């Protein structure tokens, strides 16, 4: 297995684990953390494929993905705080209405 295939496989495994976490876990903050795991898998794949093409573009895309991930984490956690303030719970079986 050459290095490129290994890194593509590693990115795929990390992405699948993150997707498994997003679909399975009930705590809202753990779901956000699994989303960050998926984003990191994508970053790893981008850097590996960018290296294969021999340009710096893969790393530039990762730079932008990181900036967008930071913005998304900030807004997502603000939503978590707002949800907790209204429902006083963070698990998906308790927060299932849009009421409040």
């Amino acid at each position, binding site marked *: 297995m050459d290095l490129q295939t*290994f890194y593509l496989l590693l990115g795929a495994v990390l992405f*699948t684990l993150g997707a498994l976490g997003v*679909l399975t876990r009930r705590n809202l903050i753990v779901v956000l953390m699994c989303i960050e795991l998926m984003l990191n898998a994508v*970053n790893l794949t981008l*850097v590996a494929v960018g290296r294969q093409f021999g340009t710096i573009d893969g*790393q530039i895309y990762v*730079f932008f993905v990181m900036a967008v*991930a930071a913005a998304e984490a900030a807004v997502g956690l603000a*939503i978590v705080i707002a949800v907790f303030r209204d429902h006083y719970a963070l698990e998906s079986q308790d927060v299932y209405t849009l009421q409040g």
Partner: protein
Amino acid sequence: MPVSSYIFGFLTMLCAIGVVASRRPLNSALWLVTTLFLVAVHFALLGAGFLALVQILVYAGAIMVLIIFVLMLLGADQGERETAFSLPSGLVAIVCACFLLLIGFALYQGSSAPSLLSVPPQMSPPDGSVEAVGQALFTRFLFPFQIIGVLLLAAVIGAVVLVHEHKRPLPPGRGLRAMREKEHS
């Protein structure tokens, strides 16, 4: 050189399993910090030195601190009430395993057959230093760079607006303020 990649790749996979399978959210957060550090190691091994440092600074140093801060602020550190592994999550695991097998199959098909883009593997690795990234970022990617600035501004304003507590009457007995008043009375 590839041996270290394999070792760190295996460790990254273990830490990612720790993120998904931990019972307490704080344990998940700490496993995720370790995973982010290992991904930074992978970036460095792939020749993206600047990106490895940015990963540690931004992801492990800012985003994870924010997540742990909110976890501790809300006291959401209890494990989930029902067990996390039930029949629906078993089905989800099977679907994800099929997805992973599909990707693995596509990768092995692609590595043996001539690829569509006919890119030779292992070209000369790009220079991942600060100068090279800055060179591309401020010339070819200048417009997306400015847009990212506007995006970050919008995200900060949005986060403040979302958390801002309006002076609206809550229904009796719900909400944090009602809980506090109940405690004090």
